[in-house]
């Protein structure tokens, strides 16, 4: 795992983060649910929480789909190429390329469209950046920079968990398995486990 230069992170008093979607994108509930699941994967292994809000301007994390040059100096390039980017803490800006063939529901791995990209896989990766992780050379990790189209990769690897827990510490209820997102109910009923960092 790696960090951005200077190891930026969300400050100690800012562990309950809010996120909102660019209203102009008009995402459906199914599409918003993809991001909720992605946030939950990181919440399961850290003390951080993520809550959706309707106030885009006030949200800590702002999620938007954009095409081409969208004003931050990092223009998107159409189908495939760069899929998304996110800024280091505490910026909270999370941009996705609107021109991709995003798959939010259904099995991306069986798609006959060669350029289909799994939204949740990319969301989990970019949230890692929003929290302070850089790219990793560990191919199995979420923070590896590339992802093949028609691939789903959403489970945090040991490398990801170790990295994020260096920044924020562990979730007292984390039991060492990051294969599925933990719900709040699961957290309450978990028998717990030692934080890994």
């Amino acid at each position, binding site marked *: 795992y790696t960090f951005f230069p200077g190891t930026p992170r969300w400050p100690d008093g800012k562990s309950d983060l809010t996120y909102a979607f660019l209203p102009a994108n008009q995402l459906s509930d199914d599409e918003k649910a993809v991001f909720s699941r992605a946030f939950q994967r990181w919440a399961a292994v850290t003390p951080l929480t993520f809550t959706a809000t309707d106030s885009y301007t006030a949200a800590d994390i702002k999620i938007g789909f954009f095409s081409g040059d969208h004003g931050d100096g990092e223009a998107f390039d159409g189908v*495939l*190429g760069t*899929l998304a980017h996110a800024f280091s803490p505490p910026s909270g800006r999370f941009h996705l390329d609107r021109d991709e063939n*995003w798959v939010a*529901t259904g099995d991306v791995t069986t798609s006959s469209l*060669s350029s289909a990209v799994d939204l949740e896989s990319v969301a989990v990766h970019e949230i890692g950046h929003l929290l302070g992780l*850089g790219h990793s050379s560990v191919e199995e990790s979420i923070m590896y920079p590339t*992802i093949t189209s028609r691939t789903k990769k959403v489970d945090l690897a040991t490398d990801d968990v170790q990295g994020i827990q260096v920044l924020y510490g562990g979730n007292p209820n984390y039991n060492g398995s990051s294969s599925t997102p933990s719900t709040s109910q699961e957290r309450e009923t978990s028998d717990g486990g030692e934080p890994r960092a």
Partner: protein
Amino acid sequence: FFLPNISSIPPSLLPNVSSPAWNAFRNFSGCHAGERRDGLANLKKYFRYFGYIPETPSNFTDDFDDALASAIKTYQHNFNLEPTGQLDDATLTQLVRPRCGNPDIVNGSTAMNSGKAESLSATHFHAVGH
């Protein structure tokens, strides 16, 4: 911009993607130091975008120069490829994959493989046949 329930869409209704970004890089297979090849400047821009070549005030040329060879070698190291500095097939396959737009190297420093001690990143085993 979303494909609703991808599994249920007939192939005939799916959008046709003619040439994804970076596919042209595949034409550089076997290109080596000292060579000049149309479009190599675009590959240099790719490497600059992701932090492998420092910002330069002048435009890039289509020459396979030392800066490009160094960038390729660092990239290969970061992506667990043989660090040859050559545009071999394995490297090109990795280069054209879709990816995150965040750079791998920020301000000239990297914490990926190429920025770590060799002892931490070396995973090669040497075998001798008997």
